[in-house]
């Protein structure tokens, strides 16, 4: 199948020292994550804070150096690139950050921030650069006159538009959205989400969308990977995941989403205890100490990924099915446009 990005067995461990002269320990932030993203596709990583979803996103771009694994982008291994090759590769992979306040240099005008990618990668005259900046400001819904302003003169939503504009300046093929709307007011969240979806379609971008907000994920993504303690426990097309979650963790997660219908009866699945420390992740299935359906085997054996249905992968002993040979992702059919926001809602 057609793949833009393929991540295989990505690992990021952090060394920490416990106390004076204490034994070094390892935080297993990301522990063997694999997924693939097709052109024009939005793949979402969801999970609680600390499950490693942002680390995964940063490691894919090598903004954090992964401990192990492979990242293939358009057939090239990103992790094997030398600094110059990496610099060139970054033209095509960009990121939108979570914090619209911290992600813009307070001492640079919008224009200076937006022309930076052009200065690094393209030889343009000052006038050409100015034109590109003005063009992009309009694309993200800001006034070209705004280019002379400083970040503190904008609202959070406007700043996030600037962050999006910066990511799109070089016309990348892949954008990592690291919780791009979590820091925004609910009132502007929908606007920014619509903008992201619109621009994704307009420029033909693949999106790795990282979020803890299940409602947001349902709205923007085609496929979803659910992360727990540094691993992806379930991958499925968005509709199937929300209608028929397989992994017990996914079910618990979805049962916590509020449903705006007072008549509908919901069964809440309350998980006992807290997420275990990523320094000593539990043996066997990482979810077994909290799993309401844990079997004896879960304590000892790490569940292999299984494919209970087409396009679905789940790491759980409850399910049979063949282990996946290839990481499967249903590519949008050739010629078919990605679903509109209204369609995605269903």
């Amino acid at each position, binding site marked *: 199948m057609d793949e833009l990005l393929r991540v295989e067995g990505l690992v990021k461990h952090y060394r920490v020292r416990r106390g004076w002269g204490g034994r070094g320990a390892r935080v297993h932030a990301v522990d063997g994550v694999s997924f693939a993203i097709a052109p024009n596709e939005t793949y979402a990583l969801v999970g609680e804070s600390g499950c490693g979803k942002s680390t995964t996103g*940063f490691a894919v*771009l090598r*903004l954090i150096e992964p401990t192990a694994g492979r990242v293939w982008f358009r057939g090239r291994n990103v992790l094997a690139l030398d600094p110059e090759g990496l*610099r*060139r590769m*970054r*033209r095509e992979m*960009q*990121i939108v*950050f*979570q*914090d619209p306040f*911290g*992600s*813009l*240099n*307070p*001492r*640079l*005008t919008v224009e*200076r921030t937006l022309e*930076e*990618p052009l200065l*690094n*990668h393209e030889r343009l005259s000052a006038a050409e650069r100015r034109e590109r900046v003005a063009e992009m400001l309009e694309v993200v819904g800001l006034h070209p006159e705004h280019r*002379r302003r*400083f970040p*503190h003169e904008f609202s959070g939503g406007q700043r996030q538009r600037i*962050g999006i504009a*910066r990511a799109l*300046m*070089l016309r990348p093929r892949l954008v990592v959205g690291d919780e791009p709307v979590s820091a925004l007011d609910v009132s502007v969240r929908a606007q920014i989400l619509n903008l992201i979806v619109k621009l994704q379609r307009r420029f033909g971008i693949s999106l790795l969308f990282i979020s803890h907000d299940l409602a947001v994920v349902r709205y923007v993504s085609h496929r979803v990977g659910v992360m727990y303690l540094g691993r992806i426990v379930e991958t499925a097309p968005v509709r199937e995941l929300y209608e028929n979650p397989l992994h017990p963790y996914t079910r618990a997660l979805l049962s916590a989403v509020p449903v705006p219908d007072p008549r509908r009866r919901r069964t809440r699945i309350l998980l006992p205890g807290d997420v275990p420390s990523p320094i000593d992740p539990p043996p066997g299935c990482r979810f077994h100490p909290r799993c309401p359906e844990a079997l004896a085997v879960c304590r000892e054996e790490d569940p292999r990924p299984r494919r209970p249905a087409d396009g679905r992968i789940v790491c759980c002993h409850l399910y049979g099915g063949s282990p996946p040979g290839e990481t499967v992702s249903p590519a949008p059919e050739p010629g078919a446009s990605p679903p509109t926001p209204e369609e995605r809602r269903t």
Partner: protein
Amino acid sequence: MLEGAESLRLWGETLRALGRSPGAVIGGGLLLAILATSLLFPWFTAADPLAQDLLARLTPPCWQEGGSLAHPLGTDNLGRDVLVRILHGSRVSLFVGFAAVLVACGSGILLGLLSGYYGGRLDSLIMRVADVFMAYPFMLLTISVIAVLGNSILNLILVLGLSDWVTYARTVRGSVLSIKEKEFVTAARSVGTPNRVILRRHIFPNVLSPVLVLGTVRVANIIIWESGLSFLGMGVPPPMPTWGRMLAEGRVYITDAWWLVTLPGLAIMLTILAINLLGDGLRDALDPRLRNIPR
């Protein structure tokens, strides 16, 4: 760094904020007056600070009995005019103060940026050298260097500057450590900006404010150190008058001629007060969080 009209606007905002602080206005005004006096006094008096008038030795200031308007602030033990000497001394003291701070600032900022941004072995090396400098008594260092190299103004500036770089380096390093974790630095890396450009464009302008404040305060310190060294005979080579040497020479006559130590001491105090007031105001004005609080 910033360019053009936008950067002027940012500085304009800072200046306006500075104008709202009464301390900064008083300090800044006083400092301007002192600098202007020290630059412009030759237009008004051509008197020689070394000219001796042995018949008018130890004349008191004009408002005291026995004083005369020929020597408004009195004369010293060799009959040299105290006012003229203070004016000439201001040039040396202020020049040495600002020049030494520039040397210290320049080397400290550079080493602090490298140390904080690149980290690792370079950081350890620079910071251990800084520890040595901090552990070594500054006076001892200065005196030994001056004793070996001889005392000239240039040596003095270099020695004073180089013994003070540690403060800047550590301040800058600390700021860099926090700034480099900001998302806009990560963003710059992700759009492919090389390290040296990140340092110059994103990190340096954002660590500048604390250094600017520190610099103003350290000018005052350097002036005191220069006075101390001149007092010990290790400062600016004689017979050039400096405020510190005037203090040292006047000390012997303190019981008979109070003005010989009090007046240069007052000059030092006023200058330092002005600089500190300005520095305090600058600290508040450069912090955008404090900037918009109505006073």
